[in-house]
């Protein structure tokens, strides 16, 4: 993922793409490129959530030890 977006910016871009698609603002030429990009953004956001959940579980363990 270029430029390492934040979760927030990735989510905003993803929403924009879905919105553009829903409102037929995307040319067929761009469609597969846009969908590919949206998938990459989705993957990125999911990875972020997964990492946060893992971190939280780890933190939970640390706090219990404390």
């Amino acid at each position, binding site marked *: 993922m270029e430029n390492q977006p934040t*979760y927030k910016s990735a*989510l905003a871009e*993803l*929403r924009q*793409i*879905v919105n553009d*698609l*829903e409102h*037929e603002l*995307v040319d*067929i030429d761009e*469609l597969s490129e846009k*969908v590919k990009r*949206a*998938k990459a953004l*989705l993957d990125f*956001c*999911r990875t972020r*959530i997964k990492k*946060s*959940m893992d971190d*939280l579980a780890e*933190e*939970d363990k640390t*706090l219990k030890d404390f």
Partner: protein
Amino acid sequence: MATKSYTLLELNEYLKRVLALNVRDAVWVKCEITQANITRGHFYLELVEKRGEEIVAKSKAIIWAREAVKLNKKLKGILSQLLQPGIQVMLQVKVNFHEVFGLKFIVTDIDPAFTLGELELKKRAVVSKLKEQGLLRKNSMLPFPLVPQRLAVLSSERAAGWHDFLAHLQNNPYDYVFDITLFSASVQGELAVKELVKQLSQIESQKDEFDIVVIIRGGGARLDLVAFDDEHLCTGIANSSLPVLTGIGHEVDETIADLVAFRALKTPTAVAGFLIDMMIRFESELNRIVQLLQIAAQGRLKTEQQRLENLDRNLKLAAKQLVKQQSMTLSALEKSLHLLDPKTILNKGYSLTTKDNKIITKSQDLKSGEELTTILKDGEVKSIVK
């Protein structure tokens, strides 16, 4: 005329006889002690009676060591505390006149109830004075720290209560750490008030280094606690910038120090228990917050996850929809094109007339004798205009 005279011994012997005959039995006398010294177990007292500040009577008295032991036993060990300067006492004395040592009272008994009553009156006077000055509740109005960990302890390093307190805090099963500084002072006897006041003001000058003040002792007889009813000390406690906890006695005693303190606990151990409980409460609150934090964080992540799933679904739907829409547009275009195709028109029976490869649409564009080409569904026909 020869004046009748006596030798000193004769006079003193006479006085001794007069006294012995007239004041034969022991009598009870109410007086104030101004001096009390103990030498080889004997108590040497100076007794006075005052009207206001003026001394109107003064005598010396002695408690012989053997008598002192008996009295101390009767008074449950508080004899030396009872015989303090400034204390009103009721003593049973035998009047004794010695030819060499002069007039002395020999103390044979003490009424402790009288002295305690006097002390109680004095105590009430101090309480009402502190009340008038608004000092009774002053210390208890201070904010109490959530985690009282830095303790300035006012006690005697010899007091059993101090050692109980220390042991209880240091051996707490939760491994809480307390930073304890002892400000040592006598907690009973003549020097107690002076030392306690001095150390309390020392603590006040280092107030930023501590969270609270703890005053501990360790029970004992009512009179042992007299220092803790002192007006000066109690004013200092009331005015302390730090909350003061007391653990002074372990009986039914309540001193004025207990009244003016932030909180009075029965014993030094009870003070330690109170402090440990505060730490437990604080830790539980922390744990509760941590749990809330975890629940909130998990909730937030779940929401985000759901949001992503929705976006994923919408993306797929929108992409399919877009493709479908475009296909439909293409089909419509295709249909229009087909309808507009000249072949379709020729197939329907229409024909196309051309001259020199140009389509002729008006009759006046043709002249007689010119050659036309008519395009039909299946071929061309040439003809001449007439």
